[in-house]
């Protein structure tokens, strides 16, 4: 099975958020970047498990500048075979998806795996766009994936619970909790990752459809109002009369 896993780079959740250039750019200074957890924990690890059980290959694909290389190496250390970086700023979801689709179009991947969404902008867009651009079926928020004889069985979240879908490969799938368990790279993996192939490719000519005009920070939260544990009724009164939520 030939598997492509698309990974993105996000700031660690504990990052202090600030902006530069008149609040039009995210300030990356001193920010610790990680592989988007959904991409790493669920998409990549499930891809690796399928390869280990059935043979094949797992390739990593990122759209980004050289600043992506450390997170790509991390994915290689966890066990991917090789990686491709499309050398371009990921301007918006459509731009990123178009790059991925242009690359994957004639490569014969059986599965193209994504994370459910990035944890910084929470777009949940790129996977579905790639599916449309390649005219393939798309399962989003998948929590289980089994493949046998070219037929995939995927469980996904829907409004009222879960649904199990069946379809022939190739498929595009966005992965969420339940798919797999996080893997910590070991020393051997980290050493091996240094020499695994990381190919850099030129970007296709594509226009972005949306842009970020400016950022802002929410107003500082006022101090918490403490209520005596013996005085439950006071809290209910405040929730009714002050907060007006009940």
């Amino acid at each position: 099975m030939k598997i492509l896993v698309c990974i993105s780079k996000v700031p660690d959740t504990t990052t202090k958020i600030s902006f530069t250039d008149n609040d039009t750019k995210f300030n990356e200074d001193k920010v610790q970047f990680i592989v988007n957890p959904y991409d790493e924990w669920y998409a990549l690890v499930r891809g690796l498990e399928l390869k280990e059980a059935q043979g094949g290959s797992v390739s990593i694909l990122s759209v980004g500048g050289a600043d992506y290389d450390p997170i790509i190496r991390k994915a290689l250390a966890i066990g991917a075979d090789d990686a491709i970086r499309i050398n371009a700023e990921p301007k918006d979801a459509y731009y990123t998806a178009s790059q991925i689709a242009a690359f994957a179009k004639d490569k014969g991947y059986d599965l193209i795996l994504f994370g459910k969404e990035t944890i910084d902008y929470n777009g949940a867009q790129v996977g579905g766009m790639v599916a449309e651009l390649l005219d393939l079926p798309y399962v989003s928020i998948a929590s289980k994936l089994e493949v046998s004889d070219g037929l995939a069985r995927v469980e996904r979240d829907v409004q009222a619970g879960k649904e199990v879908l069946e379809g022939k490969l190739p498929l595009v799938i966005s992965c969420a909790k339940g798919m797999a368990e996080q893997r910590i790279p070991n020393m051997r993996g980290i050493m091996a990752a240094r020499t695994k192939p990381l190919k850099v490719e030129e970007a296709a000519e594509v226009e972005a459809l949306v842009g970020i005009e400016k950022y802002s920070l929410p107003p500082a939260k006022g101090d918490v109002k403490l209520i005596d544990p013996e005085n439950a009724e006071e809290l209910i009164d405040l929730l009714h009369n002050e907060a007006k939520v009940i």
Partner: protein
Amino acid sequence: MSVLVYVNAPEGKIAKAAYEAVYYASKIAEKEGGDVHVVTYGSVSDDSLAELGQYGASKVMVCRELSEENDQKLTAIVAAAREKCGAKVIVFSFDPSGKVVAPRLSAKLKAGLVSGATSVPEIDGARFSIRTNVFSGKAFATYQVETEIKIISLMPNSLKPEKSDKKAEVESLSPSLPEAGLKVVERKRQSGDGIPLPEAELVVSAGRGLKGPENWGIVEELAEALGAATACSRPVSDIGWRPHHEHVGQTGIAIRPNLYIAAGISGAIQHLAGVNNSKTIVVINTDPEAPFFKAADYGIVGDAFEVLPKLTEAVKKFKASN
């Protein structure tokens, strides 16, 4: 400008988030003068569809031939409805169904998509900008959509619809549908018939401070008294004290209820990422230094085992006298 709304009605029932999306669309349509059209599918009754008029829809197009939530077919029906009504703005709910169809449609129409909108767009000539929450609720971003057709996914619980007594006209839509690559072979309904967490306006949540699954009775009792849904922190669902669909936070679901009550949860940043857009946060924790107090509006430094039952009593008393 005319606006088209995609309404998902699984098993014939319209979700609360869909009413919000229709109302939101009417707020956009109002700005420049225009109608709200709805596209939906499946077995939902004509009467329920006509009621979408109360939220601002003037016309509802329903594709009866389609009964499954299929990504490729749904994209085709929304595109056909768009073609028919000429809408320049298409609204989805940012829920599992919207997350499948909106990106596909965006790529198909080359129409810019903004996910998780929390307020009505600002429209000024060619400028069309929409604000969303980013970086786990730690900041806002204002997006500018550059394309002629614009797609917005609305974050559930972002606005409270007001109803009128209008009725929408219902007509059928029968576009040619593509082959489905995927087939539904099994449906698993969420156990229990309580309020689905993403839609809940009131949520009572608990964490490892509750010590064990056998102690959740006091959490459920408060939730029941309030008419709230229940949620939990990640370790609690990981060790199986509570079902996975209750897990909120960065790796679970993100919610924005009017009231979030958290008992025995420390308030780690990954937990806050899923809840800090709640309108009002109440924290109950024995440790006055628990980080959650910094994100809270109201706090009780105390033992959840004593405080929760007292709150339940107080809520019952309040309900009886109101």
